[in-house]
């Protein structure tokens, strides 16, 4: 039956009169495309700050860990969930956690969706993730979801800490899209752009942060 519904709809559409469509106008390039590295970083930080994202900059990964320690102290973190992506792995969080008396959970510690959901919804005070991309056009980070980058870690805890290596920063979205979706046989099951904390203005237009997702996003720029 499904087959016939499909064919019926498509046949109908194909039988309709053909129409011409206008050519795409030329679009001038985005200003971020002509920026050098430091300008790009400065632009990205401006955008992040506009979206109320707290930004720390570290020259390397050891310094990033120091920044993280400060953040953990300020936020009173005792138990966090971290992904196992290549950026986070470079931080060696288990060792850091032991030293600072912070329990580090990862999605892999859990045998099934239920127990993992319990932890990420009810126990994790923060989610720590790396990012695959950052885009200076807006305050945007891009995460490829896969076995190392679980989806709820950057979403369910009230605080999201994103570790952003500066060499992953690009001027515009297109560069990300090309890398992530360039080979259509290898598209990730989900890819997400995140630009600041979750928010809403649904009651009388009053804006507030932390509607369903994180109320606060902290970016630690590395490099």
């Amino acid at each position: 039956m499904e087959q016939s519904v499909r064919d019926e709809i498509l046949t109908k559409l194909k039988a309709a009169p053909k129409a011409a469509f206008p050519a795409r106008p030329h679009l001038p390039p985005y200003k971020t495309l002509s920026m050098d590295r430091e300008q790009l970083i400065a632009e990205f930080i401006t955008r992040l700050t506009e979206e109320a994202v707290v930004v720390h900059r570290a020259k390397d990964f050891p310094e990033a860990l120091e920044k993280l320690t400060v953040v953990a102290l300020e936020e009173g973190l005792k138990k966090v969930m971290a992904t196992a992506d290549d950026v986070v792995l470079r931080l060696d969080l288990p060792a850091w956690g032991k030293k600072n008396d912070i329990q580090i959970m990862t999605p892999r510690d859990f045998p099934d969706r239920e127990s993992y959901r319990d932890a990420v919804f009810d126990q994790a005070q923060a989610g720590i993730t790396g990012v695959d991309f950052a885009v200076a056009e807006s305050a945007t980070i891009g995460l490829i979801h896969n076995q190392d980058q679980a989806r709820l870690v950057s979403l369910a805890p009230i605080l999201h800490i994103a570790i952003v290596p500066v060499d992953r920063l690009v001027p515009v979205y297109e560069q990300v899209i090309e890398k992530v979706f360039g080979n259509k046989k290898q598209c990730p099951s989900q890819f997400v752009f995140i630009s600041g904390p979750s928010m809403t203005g649904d009651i009388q237009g009053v804006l507030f942060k932390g509607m369903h997702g994180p109320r606060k996003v902290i970016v630690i720029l590395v490099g």
Partner: protein
Amino acid sequence: MEIKTEQFTELAKKELKNDRQRLFLKLIPPVMRMKREAGFSTLPDAPAAMACGAAIRAEAMARLPELLEEFEKNATANGMKVVWARDDKEANEFIRNLAKEKGIQYVTKGKSMVTEETALNEVLEEQGIEVWETDLGEFIAQQLHRTPFHIVGPAINVPVEEVRDLFIEKIGLKEPTLDPVKLGYAARLFLRDKFHHVKMGITGVNMAVAETGTIINVENEGNIRFTKASPPIQVSVMSLEKVIPTMKDALHMVRLLCRSCTGQRLSVYVSMDSGPKKKDEIDGPEELYIVIVDNGRSKIYQDVKAREVLRCIRCGACLAGCPVWRQIGGYAYGWAYSGPMGQVLNPMLLGLDKTQELYRASTLCGACKSICPVGIDHPSLFLYYRSKDVLEDPNFKSKERPWAERQFFRIWSFAASTPWLWNLGVRMARPFINKDARDGIISKAIGPSEGWFRNRDLPSMAGFTFHDRWKKIQNTESRGQKSE
């Protein structure tokens, strides 16, 4: 939800009496407009970007069947299950059966206009399956049993007092408050528990990319991400016009959508699914269904002019831009789609007969057209529908005009195309038409044209016709020349 598009005038009158709402409608749209303009100013060439948006959507519509096939092929290759539905019933039935088969007790939903259109919630609820709308505005609208006031802020007009009382009753709000932030937080806690244990999530689709078989959702709250990440089953419902040729096009459209909608450069979350989760992923859907709903669109598609409405990306900008919507708000339009967007869409989805007043309730000022990021020409569509309606086109389900009106226009068209009769008529009608004139203005009439004057004046007709005056002028001039 009952469709009330036929009661537009009554509903509009009622809405006009709501003073608080009217005050709100005075305050919010200018803010929205300012934000929108600031958003567009961040594009290097905003008019070109909008023209490009129009071109992308026009191309998507011109290539619709081919793009749908390409989308289906790629989505299926990625492991999504694509299901087609002729109408609301088929779409709802599929989702209901799936939910029953999987033993689902409740679902969480991301805001989806098409399921609003198909009234999916009612069908699921009849089966005893709880439905939780999770977009804050939609959650409030659902609990109040109302249609969306605005497509982006479905309950943005609801006074805080009402939200407070609603939350006390429905979600056990413990400490009554009038602080929107605290109210929002209460909803967060309540819905969080739903997200935590949900087994099936239902979302809409902002764009479906043919090139890669990817669906895109754009949101600020995170409820759609939860609805897609937490449960093992995801159902995403799209009306068939949502396809976009390429990923690059999609990103351009996202840029326009976010700016046009809320003035943001990018909404907080733009999530793109190209398939169910892989085996070693712990969250995300094990099964991912895409329901492609026709529900009248393939019929609209047959008419090349009317097809233009299918370009709409539901940004909502034309609502706050419309001088009519800014007076009456969203409820009077009587269905899921309100404002100019609804006025062009509803007549095509429901028929010209059931939406008589919708495409007439416009001053044709063109504010909507000038704002629309995909180049929909609303005023010309209104005129098109009006003409289709009076020409009684069966394809558009027009409503038969009253007998007297038809006779009047029959005589009118005969007279207007018969010069001697016309000339005679305009001379004879003058004293009759001008008899109610006051200071050169006619503001009332008795008889069948009475209604026309309810909101309008007509300048009275000149004493003589143009031809008569011309003759007179020429006579005087030729006399003048002689006397020289």
